[in-house]
């Protein structure tokens, strides 16, 4: 199986570091947003956009492109970060996040932002949209793949399991879903709010191919996708164990930064850690 060499891993880590800087800076500028869940999803998004997905930043509507549905739409700052880094829009535009008139809405809006494949934000809906995209690719005999990033709090939503049954029924094997298992939702630990465990066996019993990885290991993220791409007749779930707020010590594992931006002082500390300005 194909693996990533160390040099490439270094490059991807460097991109992810910049994306993390964008996340903390843009949410600070906006005065609100969800840095915690954006930082936990950053490494997956980086590998997808810079190593896996076939896409053309200068032609966002290219029909053959691979699609990404950010079902946990509140991680929009990370998605915008990788899109800007890919060249869909200028990096400076990231600082307009959540501002009146900005193309960068608080949650992804496919009609406003180049490169956004699906509008999301109301949790639980992205996976169903991705199923529809996958069915369309089958009708049209197209080879594009559909990637999804779900949150773990989102697993409490009934529609996720409706879509889970549906994807298995229709054997949607070009559908690859990451579960950003950062353990926390806005009201506390997922296990304290309403337990989603045992999540691996749940998805297995729903007829999915399931893997479990460290969601911050670039090499493992890459390899798990390669493995998922080889699966036939089943949708794929990759349970990625992550740390909420990853990369910024005071945000790591912190509930406070689920839905709150760093203030100016905190931003300075965060940027120092991330080696940015």
């Amino acid at each position, binding site marked *: 199986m194909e693996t990533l060499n160390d040099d490439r891993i270094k490059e991807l880590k460097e991109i992810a570091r910049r994306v993390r800087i964008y996340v903390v800076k843009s949410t600070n500028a906006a005065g609100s947003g969800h840095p915690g869940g954006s930082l936990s999803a950053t490494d997956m998004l980086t590998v997808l956009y810079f190593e896996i997905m076939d896409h053309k930043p200068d032609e966002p509507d290219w029909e053959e492109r691979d699609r990404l549905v950010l079902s946990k739409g509140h991680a929009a700052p990370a998605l915008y970060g990788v899109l800007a880094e890919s060249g869909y829009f200028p990096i400076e535009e990231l600082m307009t996040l959540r501002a009146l008139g900005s193309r960068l809405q608080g949650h992804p*809006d*496919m*009609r406003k932002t180049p490169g956004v*494949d*699906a*509008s*999301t*934000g*109301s949790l*639980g*809906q*992205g*996976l*169903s*949209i*991705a*199923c*529809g*995209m*996958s*069915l*369309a*690719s*089958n*009708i*049209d005999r197209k080879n594009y793949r559909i990637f999804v990033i779900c949150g773990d709090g989102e697993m409490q939503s*009934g*529609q996720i399991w*409706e*879509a889970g*049954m*549906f994807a298995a*029924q*229709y054997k949607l094997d070009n559908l690859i879903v990451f579960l950003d298992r950062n353990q926390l939702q806005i009201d506390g630990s997922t296990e304290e709010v309403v337990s989603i465990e045992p999540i691996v066996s749940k998805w297995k019993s729903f007829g999915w191919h399931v893997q479990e990885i460290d969601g911050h290991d670039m090499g493992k993220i890459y390899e798990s996708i390669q493995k998922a791409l080889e699966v036939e007749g089943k949708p794929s779930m990759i349970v990625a164990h992550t740390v909420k707020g990853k990369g910024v010590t005071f945000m790591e594992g912190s509930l406070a930064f689920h839905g709150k931006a760093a203030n100016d002082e905190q931003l300075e500390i965060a940027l120092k850690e991330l080696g940015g300005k």
Partner: protein
Amino acid sequence: MWEMAKQRDAYGETLVELGRERDDIVAIGADLCGSCRIKEFGKEFPERFFNSGVAEQNMMGVAAGLAFQGKTVFASTFAVFATGRAYDQVRQSIAYTRANVKIVATHAGITVGGDGASHQMLEDIALMRVLPNIRVVAPADYYETSKATRTIADMDGPFYMRLGRSSVPIITDEDSLFEFGKASILKDGDDVTLIGTGIMVSRCLKAAKMLQKKENIEARVVNMSTIKPLDEKTIVKAAKETGGVVTAEEQVVSQGMGSGISQVLSESYHVPMKRVGVPNVFGESGNSEELMEKYGLTAEAIVESAHDVIARK
């Protein structure tokens, strides 16, 4: 009297024709594919037909995903599930994104009959007309349903089309014009205007006949088959020329078509008005005709309202 036919039959037949003409037409249902009449489409085009099972929220999301890839999607289930159960999915995934999804709901209204209140959707017009980007159509009969199905397939973006369960009188014919956003005048008159939608249009015609025969009152009858956007021009013109308006719908009166018309008139041309519909209550089991009578959806109720309006002119 009139011949009777089911609107959903017209929908199912037209959908098959559309499927033959256009590769981009796909259909999805939620375990009620037979009742909604999309099963035939599924038989002829199995590769373009999907069933979500009893999972309407997922159905709406899947429909949106199909539409984002260039498909013209017909999503069908009962009105109560399409607009109630899946409201947030319709709002977020379809209306907000302007997805090319045609939500065609059957079994709307009290005429569902024996199934009772759990299945009698009387709030769907209210729920759908308030949503940005969604256009709302409620055809009056078999032929109009067929034409409306074609029209919404030809127009890009989301629609809600409301159909009933039972057979309804055929009051138009194959050659009558259906124009989206345009109300049609089925009978001229200058004494009062009766504006109906869906199954209530034929009752307005009946009421007009009663008014004419017994009292020499000439009522204008308007078929408001597009509920959103409302044909304001026709409404205001009728108000000016007849001086009073009665609306009739198989819906709670508090936020339905009649409310929309009263909003138009209160801002543009104030005339006495009366809205015929179901009060803000749930229905119950019974046969369609009994229920229509008990809940005041009759030609007699329209006649009575016309008297009230005329008296206040």
